[in-house]
């Protein structure tokens, strides 16, 4: 059989069901083999969207997502999506076409050093040089992507490798693979586990920070058990949102730059901090010297390099969060905990202070109100909000959602954390819908971010993928303009998006149902219409552009939360007149 057919067999062996991609000259044998296979292939309208869709699929399912792009520009268009997936430890396998091996290095048409380009943004990558290597390399790629700390893996496929013949009996797809230099640790060191349990027992003001690693390890049941048994409140990172039910009395909400008062103060005041599957990014810690100054840190992570990288650690435990929490619980259950009444009262006070205000009747609509109505409409079809998957884009829309949308199920809040990639939300929702076909899948996005991948309206229209797009439409690059107002003397530069396009007409031009919402009383109905349509739908919600987020300045002390004044966006008028002079010189 041809190499490309062997690739199909290899993908089958990995249980792949859907591929997101875009063909091209150097992938013709691959797509020809695809034609003869049973795979679902979703043709996105841009390769970046294919990568985000594969990423969304991976995040929502926990399985590997696969994207495909041709050589040269196809490969480079994938880059942002692959980097985004990798930064958030999402298992994505990216396949790229490549010029035939005999042309490699000669600057052939659409040749690019894909191996070099993807190397620093993936967990590992391969270039297949001989057809006989296909079975092993595919196996390795998937194994590396999904085990240990998951991540993106790239495989470059020269055209002749896809075309040449391969005897699969001679070179079978291996069931097990031995990677000499790759042995992720699963179980935590028993002594460290014992030490951690001892420390948790005597802790008077303990706090847990749960990150994306808890999501990946499916460790929610163990986390809840630990938190309840030992009376430890839990805050989550953006990547951890969903791993601990937010209506739980021990939930503190999100921690960090845009975190809740409850989380940031509890972490600051803690005497024992238990970080699980979180990498202490600068968005969580702010100024390191004032971060949780009087605390002992227990850090649980599958990636040893994360431990001690940013924050000093007292008890490091390397391994899978689920396995480690199970082991810790065994130790904890044997003894009584220190009384924590005082701490619990303090936590309750902080929680009360952080209670979000969500009821607004203002026009233009406040984002908080949109989220309140969104939850209400969703609860009618999904009371526990467990059958709903949300993706966000990047910017204020993302942080509003992270704050105000109460998530109670893991893998149901998908957002680009590590890279903060605008354009992520909408295509990621497409992938998520394939992972969770029965779930309500909603992409919340800003107008700026939506325009970065709005061409995917064509994809959801063509395949009738019932994803709902919700645009928090403030006609500005909200997050940037907020920062300019706060830290750059209100000099708003290059953040005004103007009045175009008309998102309703845009959606309709693709044949997609759409509604514009301008009054708070219409939000609920609009959501119901979208949810009940069972079809792709777009809601353009005109929100108050002056609404600003509370935040901690970059590198600041996490308890110095700033509640900025509302600021109207003020476009720099002179800019337009200058432009007109240049563009129509006769005037």
């Amino acid at each position, binding site marked *: 059989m041809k190499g490309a057919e062997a690739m199909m067999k290899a993908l089958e062996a990995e249980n792949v069901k859907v591929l997101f991609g875009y063909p091209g000259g150097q992938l013709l044998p691959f797509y020809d083999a695809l034609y003869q296979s049973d795979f679902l292939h979703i043709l996105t309208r841009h390769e970046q969207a294919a990568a985000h869709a594969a990423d969304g699929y991976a995040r929502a399912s926990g399985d590997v997502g696969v994207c495909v792009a041709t050589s040269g520009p196809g490969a480079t268009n994938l880059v942002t999506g692959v980097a985004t997936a990798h930064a958030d430890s999402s298992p994505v396998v990216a396949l790229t076409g490549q010029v035939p091996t005999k042309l490699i290095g000669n600057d052939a048409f659409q040749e690019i050093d894909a191996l070099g380009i993807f190397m*620093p943004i993936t967990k590992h990558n391969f270039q297949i040089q001989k057809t006989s290597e296909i079975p092993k390399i595919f196996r390795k790629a998937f194994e590396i992507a999904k085990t240990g700390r998951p991540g993106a893996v790239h495989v470059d496929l020269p055209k002749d490798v896809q075309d040449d013949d391969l005897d699969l009996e001679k070179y079978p797809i291996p069931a097990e693979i031995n990677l000499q*230099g790759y042995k992720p640790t699963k179980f935590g060191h028993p002594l460290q586990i014992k030490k951690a349990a001892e420390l948790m027992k005597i802790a008077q003001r303990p706090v847990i920070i749960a990150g994306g690693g808890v999501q990946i390890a499916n460790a929610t049941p163990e986390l809840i058990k630990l938190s309840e048994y030992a009376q430890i409140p839990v805050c989550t990172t953006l990547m951890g949102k969903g791993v601990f039910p937010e209506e739980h009395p021990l939930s503190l909400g999100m921690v960090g730059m845009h975190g809740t008062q409850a989380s940031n103060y509890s972490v600051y005041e803690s005497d024992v901090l238990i970080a699980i599957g979180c990498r202490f990014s600068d968005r969580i810690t702010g100024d390191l010297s004032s971060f949780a100054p009087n605390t002992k840190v227990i850090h649980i992570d599958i990636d040893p390099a994360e431990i001690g990288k940013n924050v000093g650690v007292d008890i490091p435990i390397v391994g899978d969060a689920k396995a480690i929490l199970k082991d810790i619980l065994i130790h904890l259950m044997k003894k009584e905990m220190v009384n924590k009444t005082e701490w619990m009262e303090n936590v309750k006070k902080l929680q009360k202070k952080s209670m979000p205000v969500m009821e607004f009747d203002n026009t233009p609509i406040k984002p908080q109100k949109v989220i309140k109505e969104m939850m209400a409409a969703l609860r009618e079809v999904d009371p526990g909000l467990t059958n709903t998957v949300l993706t966000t884009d990047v910017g204020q829309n993302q942080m509003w959602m992270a704050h105000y949308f109460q998530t109670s199920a893991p893998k149901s809040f998908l957002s680009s954390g590590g890279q903060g990639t605008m354009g992520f939300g909408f295509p990621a929702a497409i992938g998520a819908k394939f992972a969770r076909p029965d779930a309500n899948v909603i992409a919340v996005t800003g107008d700026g971010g939506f325009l970065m991948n709005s061409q995917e309206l064509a994809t959801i229209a063509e395949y009738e993928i019932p994803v709902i797009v919700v645009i928090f439409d403030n006609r500005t690059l909200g997050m940037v303009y907020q920062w300019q107002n706060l830290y750059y003397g209100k000099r708003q530069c290059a953040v005004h998006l103007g009045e175009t396009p008309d998102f309703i007409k845009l959606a309709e031009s693709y044949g997609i149902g759409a509604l514009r919402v301008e009054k708070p009383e219409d939000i609920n109905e609009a959501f119901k219409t979208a949810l009940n349509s069972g079809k792709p739908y777009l809601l353009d919600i005109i929100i108050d552009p002056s609404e600003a987020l509370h935040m901690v300045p970059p590198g600041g002390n996490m308890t110095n939360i700033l509640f900025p004044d509302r600021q109207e966006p003020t476009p720099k008028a002179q800019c337009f007149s200058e432009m007109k002079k240049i563009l129509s010189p006769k005037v």
Partner: protein
Amino acid sequence: MEHKHIISVLVLHKPGVLQRISGLFTRRWFNISSMTVGSTENPDVARMTIVVQGDDTVLEQVVKQLNKLVEVVKVTDLNSKKSVQRELCLVKVYAPTEDSKSQVIQYANIFRGKIIDLSTETLTVEITGDEQKVNAFLDLVRPMGIKEIARTGLTALMRGSKILKSNKA
């Protein structure tokens, strides 16, 4: 405290591995003083000896990040172990007269160096040793006029019978 660390890294002997490792050092701003690569007793495995400048936290990250690379089989910090270290240095010294030539030859003998090339104006000396020894020799001949130097950077092995097994498991 900043100091030099000698790290011994066994890697799979494959194309692209060097790029992966040097890319890691560039991206993370690890400060490399020198890096040597060569084959080992196992044809599938190469040994890199990397000298890094930094404090202990930097060293810890270097070791951990190297370990994350799939093609890296084993990483050892040789500072924590007794080790033997050598560097090869070729130095071309200006020695136009018989006197200056015999002077260089004398120095070379003391340092157990070898004269490996000769011209009317220059002598080329091969010298091996740890960094201090090579530096000391260079300091000695510098006043005479060094025309050119080529140094390999350190390579090192653990002392005694202990070895780095090329299997991580």
